[in-house]
Each structure stands twice: as C-alpha cells, then as structure tokens.
C-alpha cells in the first residue's frame, strides 16, 4: 500500500499514539488536581505533623540560585536550550535549594529534594540567524549559588564586574548557526506558592544537607550505583573521617559563596577571599540550626512533595486543564483509530 492511503495511515497512527499520550498525561493531571483541591490549606503557625497543604510567599533561606539563562535569583529553575528540528537538548539544567514559605501567621522551611515542580515558564523565546539572541537572554557567568543576603561589596562587585562566558556560553557560541529555543521555569522569592508535602520534625530528616538541595548535575547518594561505590569505598577504608581532610577548603562554612568564615588554604598566587564579618559568620553558622522538634516540609515515601506556582486554585486549575486536554486526547485517539481502520480497509481492499 502506498500513496495517499499510506500517508493517511501514518498520520492516523501518529494521532493514535499522540492521543493516548495526551490521555495518559491528562489522567495524571486529574489525580494531581484532586490531591490539591481535596486538601485544605493549613495556617503555618498551627500546622500539625502529617500531610499538609500550605500556601504563601516564597522567602529565601540561606542560599539562592542564579538561573542559567536569565541570571535571576531564584529557589528553583529548570533551563533548557534546544536546536530547532533536533530533539537533543543542548542544555538541560534543573536545580533547587531549600526555602521558606511565609503566610500571615508564620513561616515554614521547605526541603525540596525529590519534589515535583509545577512552575510555568518565565522565559520562552528563540534565537534565529536573522534576529540573533532573544532580548531576555542574560546567561549566568558566575557560580550557580549565591548568598541570600549579599553584602554591599558583593553587590558592587556584581554590578561593576565583567563576567567571563562560562563553558555553556562558549559552547553555544561555537555551535552551528541553527535557531535555538530557550525556556526557563523559575520560582523566585516573593512568588506565591502552594506546597503539599509531609510536615515532619526537623530531627526526623535523614540528611538535611541532601534534602536541602536538588541538583540535576549531581547524582544523589541514594542512587544505586553511587550507594554501591560509597559502600565499596567505605569497606576499603578509603573514606576520610574529617570533612576538611576530605573536602579541603570546601568544608569551611561560607567558602562556596565566596565569604569563608576563616582563612582558606589557597595557592599563593590566588586572589585572597574576603573573610566573612561577624554578622555574616553568624548567618552562615545559623544554617540548619533548626530545633529538632520544629516542623519542616519535605518529601516522604508515602507523601510526595508537590511545589506549585500560584495559589491552590490556580495550581489545581492547571492540572484540571491538563485533564480536559487528556479527554480531547482520547477523542483524538478514537478518531485516529477510525481513520486508521478506514485506511487499512481501503488498502486491503485495493
């Protein structure tokens, strides 16, 4: 069979697969929408342990992220760059750091590890060989992490300094001249957010440092391969007991954000880092000094953590829309199946 009938059959087959995929996604959306709309919002000052839904404004904890495509300060971003006509991504980077949610009664700390994020795109544009890079593209040139409360000197340095293009930008610069699609989803301080997860005492978190970060660039320690490697290294006595022996300067509080609390061991030719003042040192030292009984929000095996941009109704509405699209997918699948049957019938008849 060839000619128009074959083309119809191929199109119908594609429509069938796409419709079923839309339906599958829509059913997932229905489940999530139910979970959001069936859980009442707790006031933060009176939350109790267990599954809770809180809604409020994002406030930074100790550290913020700098997004990859627009260099915006945020607590979560997912940045992608792809060349048009190519399924492979040039860049796919997703990171999150711990933050606080504040409502009119108080605030609660969120540990975002293993969270499912529902955040619409803040930046969605494309470059072309004619127009060049999109206007909003302002790629990050420094570290991905920054202090949540940078001091005056840091801000002056950031304002007046000239950043060198990083590895990604250089790569993009030398890549072929095909059009690219840029997309960045972000959650920033001040955004309204809805979080559904398990409220648990801070002391019950297995590893707060791990739970506070979600980084697609770093494999988690519970990854089977990583866990096996760690166990093997431990058995062989290769793991060091002291963090400073293992990590060197990186074990000094504040070193990662360029404000170490004490003098790091640097190469003599390296630029000296300004030491953190007493206030900053106290702030760095405060990290994770959370009372063990204080309730925090985190993912649990039986209660997945969902973090959505916007008020609860808004988040649920997006998932309900996904469900409706899924129902349209079912209609598309049935229509495609009819078209496929007719095409095959005519093909067999011919």
């Amino acid at each position, binding site marked *: 069979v060839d000619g128009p009938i074959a083309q119809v059959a191929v199109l119908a087959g594609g429509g069938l697969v796409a419709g079923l995929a839309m339906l599958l996604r829509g059913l997932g959306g229905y489940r999530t929408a139910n*979970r959001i709309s*069936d859980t009442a919002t707790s*006031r933060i*000052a009176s939350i109790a342990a267990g599954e809770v839904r809180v809604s409020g404004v994002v406030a930074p904890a100790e550290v913020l992220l700098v997004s990859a495509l627009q260099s915006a300060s945020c607590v979560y971003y997912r940045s992608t760059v792809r060349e048009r006509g190519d399924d492979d991504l040039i860049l796919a980077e997703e990171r999150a750091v711990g933050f606080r949610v504040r409502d009119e009664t108080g605030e609660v700390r969120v540990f975002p590890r293993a969270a499912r994020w529902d955040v619409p795109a803040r930046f969605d544009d494309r470059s072309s060989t004619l127009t060049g890079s999109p206007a909003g593209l302002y790629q990050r040139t420094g570290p991905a992490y920054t202090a949540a409360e940078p001091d005056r000197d840091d801000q002056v340095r950031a304002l007046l300094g000239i950043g060198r293009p990083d590895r990604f930008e250089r790569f993009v610069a030398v890549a072929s001249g095909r059009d690219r699609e840029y997309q960045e989803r972000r959650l920033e301080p001040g955004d309204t957010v809805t979080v559904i997860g398990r409220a648990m005492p801070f002391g019950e978190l297995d590893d707060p440092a791990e739970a506070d970060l979600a980084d697609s660039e770093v494999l988690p320690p519970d990854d089977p391969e990583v866990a096996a490697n760690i166990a093997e290294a431990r058995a062989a006595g290769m793991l060091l007991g002291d963090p400073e022996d293992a990590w060197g300067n990186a074990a000094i509080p504040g070193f990662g954000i360029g404000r170490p609390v004490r003098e790091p061991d640097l190469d003599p030719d390296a630029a000296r880092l300004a030491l953190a003042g007493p206030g900053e040192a106290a702030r760095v030292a405060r990290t994770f000094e959370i009372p063990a009984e204080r309730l925090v929000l985190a993912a649990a095996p039986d209660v997945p953590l969902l973090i959505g941009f916007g008020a609860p109704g808004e988040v649920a509405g997006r998932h309900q829309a996904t469900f409706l699209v899924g129902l349209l997918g*079912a209609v598309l699948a049935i229509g495609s*199946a009819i078209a496929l*049957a007719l095409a095959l019938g005519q093909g067999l008849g011919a």
Partner: protein
Amino acid sequence: MTPGTAVALFSVGLLVIVVGFLAWETYNAVVALRLRIDKAWANIDVALKQRHDMLPALVAAVRGVMAFEQDVLGDVARARAAYSPTEPIPAQAAVSEATTSAIRSLFAVVEQYPELGSHRNVLDLQDEIERIEGVIADRRELYNDQVYRHNTRIAQIPALLLAPLFHWRPREFFAARPEELARPDTELRSA
C-alpha cells in the same frame, strides 16, 4: 476481525479505561478525604486536651489574688469539667466555645489585677493558653474546610453515583448546634 470491529473494541476499551480510572480515583479520593478529616479531628483533640490540662494550673495561679471573682473562676471550672472527648462533635464544639468564652472572661478580669502582672507563671500560662486557643481556632477552621470538601465531593458526580454503594454520608462540622449552645451546665467539680 474486521477493522470496524477492532475500532469499536478499541473505543469501548478506551471508554472503560477512562470511566474505570475515574471511579477508582474518586473512591481513593473520598477515602483520603475521610482520613484527612479524621486526622484533622485528632489534631483538634490534642489541642483541646492540652487546654484542658492547663486550665487547673491557671485557675490555681490566680485564685489567691482574685478572691472576689469566684463566678469567673467557676465558669472556667465548669467549662473544663464539661470536656468529654467521647461526646458527639457538635456537643464538643459547644463545650469548646463555652470554654473559650470563659477563658476570655477570665483574661479580661485578670487585666484588672495589676499585681498579677508581676507573676511570671500567670503571664506564661496566659501566653500559652492564648497560643493554644489560636491553634484550636486554626485547626477548627482546617477541620471544617476538610469536612466541606468531603461533603461537597460526595454530593457531586461522579462520587454521588458511588455514595450509595459505599454508604458515604456527610460528616458533621465542628460547630455547635443551636440547642447545644445552652450547654454546658454541668455541676462545678474540683479541677
């Protein structure tokens, strides 16, 4: 099998999957709602018990100074004595409202005794009871919101179709019925 039969089977199968999924999800959602209501109620109960346990200490702390305010102290003691975790929820709501009212009256009277301002333990107890009152109010709101969601859900399609099958009934709000507001008139018992 002809292509037409295959399409018909596929369409019916898809419909059955979607309807089955909705029924399955609705059942699970209502069960989860009921469990959330139970949990919300348990959390209120914890706060009510905390308040119940703290009231004797507060009454004992102010009794010596407020010798001429026995009515106010008696109201608090009566409300406390009426607390019964086994009563139906509307009855407990009535007792809780009476207790809150008695506590507010007591705090208002305490303000008229400046000498109590120097009693650290009285101030601490007052702060703690006010905090628990806030927690009770917030959790009551949460409980009622959860009950509202449950009752709305089982009154709407598709849960409405499943409700008779699984004997789903509306749950009661944590709110006193008008006839319950006359209570508690229990005899004053020692705290």
